[in-house]
């Protein structure tokens, strides 16, 4: 989807080498020797499935995402490779080396009990509305000994101390861009950019957890051998430029403003923020969690 001249999709960001590099180590850390059936939860544009197929082409993957646009992007990508399954029946019967893509919520999975060997979720668990429900559903779908693996760049501790200012400055520059747009509109005799209130939650209510809190949550859901770690990944000017106008981000960060305007402001704010701080990248920590289903 495009809004004006700015790309508001997530695809360009997830195709970017930096984003791939941030996710690859997690996938490479998984023991796939006993893994055949994989659930790629909140699969987005299919990056985790891509990385998994690269390691083990015989996997039987089902990707699930709440967003039909993401499913369509993934379907085009895997369709071009001839590995797309048409439906669950075909996937169950003949899904080896293929992927089935379904629209749905990761906390209401289409799998039978203990049907899945590995459930992965790439950088999305922080947006699950009920994390306990999600963990319980993943546990139900996994076989005993199956693995749950996820990562997130949105947790308490994700900002390396001293780097928070960049993200704060980016948002403030985005607002300054908005103010400039409003000045242009005023000169043209137009009203300010309209804003609908109450389209997003209250400020700071992000529901982010600490690394320790995530470990406790996963253990509470009945998983064992829970391992957590953080890994630093660079957030560069180029990658923030790609993700800044993403519709899913713009509608939250600049809630209530028209998407086209919000995306433009966030996009144009990136260079201004990096320039102001005189840097081209900052490190950001990703949390990685793996656990075994009892």
């Amino acid at each position, binding site marked *: 989807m495009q809004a004006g001249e700015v790309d508001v999709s997530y695809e360009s960001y997830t195709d970017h080498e930096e984003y791939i590099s941030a996710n690859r180590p997690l996938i490479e850390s998984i023991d796939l020797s006993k893994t055949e059936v994989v659930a790629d939860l909140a699969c987005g544009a299919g990056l985790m499935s891509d990385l998994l197929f690269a390691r083990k082409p015989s996997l039987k993957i089902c990707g699930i995402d709440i967003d039909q646009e993401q499913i369509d992007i993934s379907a085009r990508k895997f369709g071009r490779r001839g590995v797309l399954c048409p439906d669950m029946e075909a996937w169950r019967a003949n899904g080896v080396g293929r992927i089935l893509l379904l629209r749905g919520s990761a906390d209401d999975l289409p799998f039978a009990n203990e049907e899945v060997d590995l459930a992965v979720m790439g950088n999305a668990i922080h947006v699950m509305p009920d994390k306990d429900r999600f963990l319980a559903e993943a546990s139900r779908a996994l076989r005993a000994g199956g693995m749950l693996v996820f990562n997130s760049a949105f947790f*308490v*501790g*994700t*900002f390396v*101390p001293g780097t*928070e*200012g960049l*993200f*704060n*400055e980016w*948002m*403030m520059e*985005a*607002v*300054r861009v908005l*103010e400039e747009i409003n000045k242009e509109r005023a000169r043209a005799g137009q009203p300010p950019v309209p804003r609908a*209130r*109450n389209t*997003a*939650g*209250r*400020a*700071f*209510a*992000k529901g*982010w957890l*600490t690394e320790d809190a995530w470990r406790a949550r996963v253990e509470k859901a009945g998983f064992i051998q829970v391992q957590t770690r953080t890994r630093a990944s660079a957030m560069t000017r180029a990658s923030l430029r790609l993700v800044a106008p993403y519709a899913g981000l713009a509608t*939250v*960060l*600049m*809630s*209530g*403003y028209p998407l086209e305007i919000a995306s433009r402001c966030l996009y144009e704010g990136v260079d201004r923020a990096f320039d*102001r701080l005189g840097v081209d990248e900052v490190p950001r920590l990703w949390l990685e969690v793996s656990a075994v289903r009892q």
Partner: protein
Amino acid sequence: MTTAENRPAIESKVIAVANETIADWDLDLPGGITCDTRLIEDLSFESIDIVQFSVGIERAFDRKGLPFEELFMKDGAYVDDITISEVTAFLCAKLTAV
């Protein structure tokens, strides 16, 4: 002037910026905005409101680059809420710092 002497003037400006931010929101605020007013619980600020408020503060005090992240984050986590008084204290500390 010392920070203590400046504080009433700073708080007055902070309240003015908050009033400007919520000007057309139709909020029910008996007694108006005071030093005890909470940005989120009382004024229903969303994330973008916090940012617009911060930009308004910088404009009101003719300063750029104030480290608002020190006000909004503690130990890597976002705070639950912020009062006008806390914003004022932050500004008293930062505006007088060389």
